[in-house]
C-alpha cells in the first residue's frame, strides 16, 4: 500500500511537471535561431564552391544541418576555428587539399587568347567577369574573390590565377617569430587585401 502511494505520488508529480514543461515549451518557444546567418557571416564569401555547395550560403545551410565545417579552403584554419566556437563542435583539420598560404589571388584573363565563349561568366559566382558572346572578357579585379571557378570551364585555358602583391596601401606588419627567435629581420611584408 505504502509503495503504491509512493508510486502514485511520484506519478502524479511526473504528470504535473511534465504538463508544466510541455506547456512552457509551447508558450516560450524560441523562434528559430538564425544559425545559418551566423555561419554564413563566418564564411569567407568567396562563393568558390570548393565545399561542394553552390556558394557560401548553401554551405552554411548544410553546416547547420550537420555537415562537417572543415570544407572551406579559402577560410582556412581560422574559419574552422570560428565555426567550431560558434557551433560547439570539435576543431577538425581542413578537409581535402590544404590551401598553401594566405596568398590572395585574382583571376586574370589573357585577353589576346579569349574567344568570348562566356563560359567563365556563367561560372563566376559574383559576376566579376564582364564580356559578351564572341567579345573579349575581362575580370573586375576588385570584385574577384579568387575562387578560381572560372579557370576550369575555360576551353582555351586563358585564365590565370595571379597573386596580388602588397602595395603601400595594402601593406602590413608581420607577426614576430616568438620566444627564442632573434628578430633578425622582423619586418616581413604581409598583404592585407
Amino acid at each position, binding site marked *: 500500500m505504502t509503495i503504491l502511494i509512493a508510486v502514485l505520488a511520484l506519478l502524479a508529480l511526473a504528470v504535473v511537471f511534465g504538463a508544466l514543461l510541455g506547456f512552457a515549451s509551447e508558450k516560450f518557444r524560441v523562434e528559430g535561431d538564425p544559425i545559418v546567418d551566423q555561419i554564413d557571416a563566418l564564411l569567407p564569401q568567396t562563393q568558390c564552391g570548393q565545399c561542394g555547395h553552390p556558394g557560401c550560403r548553401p554551405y552554411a545551410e548544410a553546416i547547420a544541418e550537420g555537415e562537417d565545417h572543415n570544407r572551406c579552403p579559402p577560410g582556412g584554419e581560422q574559419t574552422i576555428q570560428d565555426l567550431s566556437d560558434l557551433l560547439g563542435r570539435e576543431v577538425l583539420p581542413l578537409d581535402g587539399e590544404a590551401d598553401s598560404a594566405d596568398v590572395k589571388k585574382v583571376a586574370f584573363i589573357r585577353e589576346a587568347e579569349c574567344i568570348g565563349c562566356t563560359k567563365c561568366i556563367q561560372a563566376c559566382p559574383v559576376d566579376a567577369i564582364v564580356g559578351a558572346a564572341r567579345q573579349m572578357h575581362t575580370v573586375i579585379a576588385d570584385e574577384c574573390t579568387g575562387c578560381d571557378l572560372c579557370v576550369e570551364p575555360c576551353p582555351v585555358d586563358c585564365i590565370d590565377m595571379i597573386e596580388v602583391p602588397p602595395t603601400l596601401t595594402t601593406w602590413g*606588419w608581420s607577426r*614576430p617569430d616568438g620566444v*627564442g627567435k632573434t*628578430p*633578425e*629581420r*622582423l*619586418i616581413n611584408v604581409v598583404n592585407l587585401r
Partner: protein
Amino acid sequence: MNLISVTSPHTTGPSRTQRVMAQVLLATLPGLAVLCGLFGWGSLINVVWACAAALACEAAVLRLRGKPVGFHLADGSALVTAVLLALAIPPTAPWWLTLVGVGFAIIFAKQLYGGLGMNPFNPAMAGYVLLLISFPVDMTRWLPPFEAPDLATSLQLFLGRDHGIDALTGATPLDSLRTWAGDAAALAAQPALHGTFAGLGWEWVNLAFLAGGLWLLWRRVITWHIPAALLGALALCALPFWLHDSARFASPLFHLFSGAAMFGAFFIATDPVSAATSRTGRLIYAALIGVLIWVIRSFGGYPDAMAFAVLLLNLAAPTIDYYTQPRSYGHSKPKRGIGG
C-alpha cells in the same frame, strides 16, 4: 651595405631578465648566511642540491617539449625557484624531500603550464605546499637556533640518516605561539618567543631578508608596492587584536619578524609572473596576502601561512587585475569585459 632591418625602437634599456634573476639570487645571500649561522649547513646544502635538481628537471622537461634547452635555462628562473624553495624548507630536510619539492615546482607548477611567464602559481610555493601537506612531520622539524650542528651532522641529515633527529629539533616561534596561545604563563616560559625584539633567532633571519629586499628595491628589481602592502596589512591586522588580548595574539613586531613574513614579502609575493600586474592591483593583492597570513596564523591549522596565502592570492590575481585596469589616455573610464 650590411644593414639590419629591424623594428623600432632601435635602442633598449638596460633591464634584462637574466639580470633580474641574478639580482634576486644575490639578494637572498644575507638571509641564507644568517640561516646557516643559526641552523647549520643544512640550508646551504639544500640550496645547492635544489639548484642542481631544478636545472636537471627544467632541462629534461624543456627537452621533452622540444624547446631550446640552453636558451631557457639561461634565464635563471629555475634557479630562483630552487633557491626560494630550499630557503623555505627546514635545514634538516633530507635530499629526497628537496628533490620532490623542486621537481614538483619545476615540472608541474611551472613547465606543465607552459614555462616561464605562463604559470598561474608561484612554483616555489606550490612545491612547498605539496611538501607541507604530504610530509608534515619532516616539514616542521626546525632546529633550535644558535645550536647549529656541525657539517657532518648536517650532511647526515641531508642523506636521510636519522640522527636521533627528534632530539635535535625544536619548535619555531610561530609553532610555540600556536601551541600555547591564550596561556600567558606558558607563553612567557617559551624561550623561542623571546628573542631580542621578536622570535628567538628568527628576528635575525627576517632582518637579513629585509636587507636583501631593500637592496632589491634600491636596484629597482621590485617596486615598493607589494612588500609595503603585505607587511602593512599584516601589522595592521595584528595590532588591534594584540592590544586587545596580548596573551592570545602576537604583536605586529612578532608577526613581522618571527616567521616568513620578510622572506615572503620581498621574495615570494613579488614574483611578477603570478602576482597582480597593475600598481593598484599589486597593493590589493599584497594587502590581501598580509590579511590571510595573519588570519591563518591566528586561527588556522598551520603555524605559518605564507605559502597558502600566496597561492590563494595567485588564484585571485587575474580577477584583481581585471578590476584594477587603468583608464587609458583619451578614455573617460577603464574598459571592462574581455572583449572579443
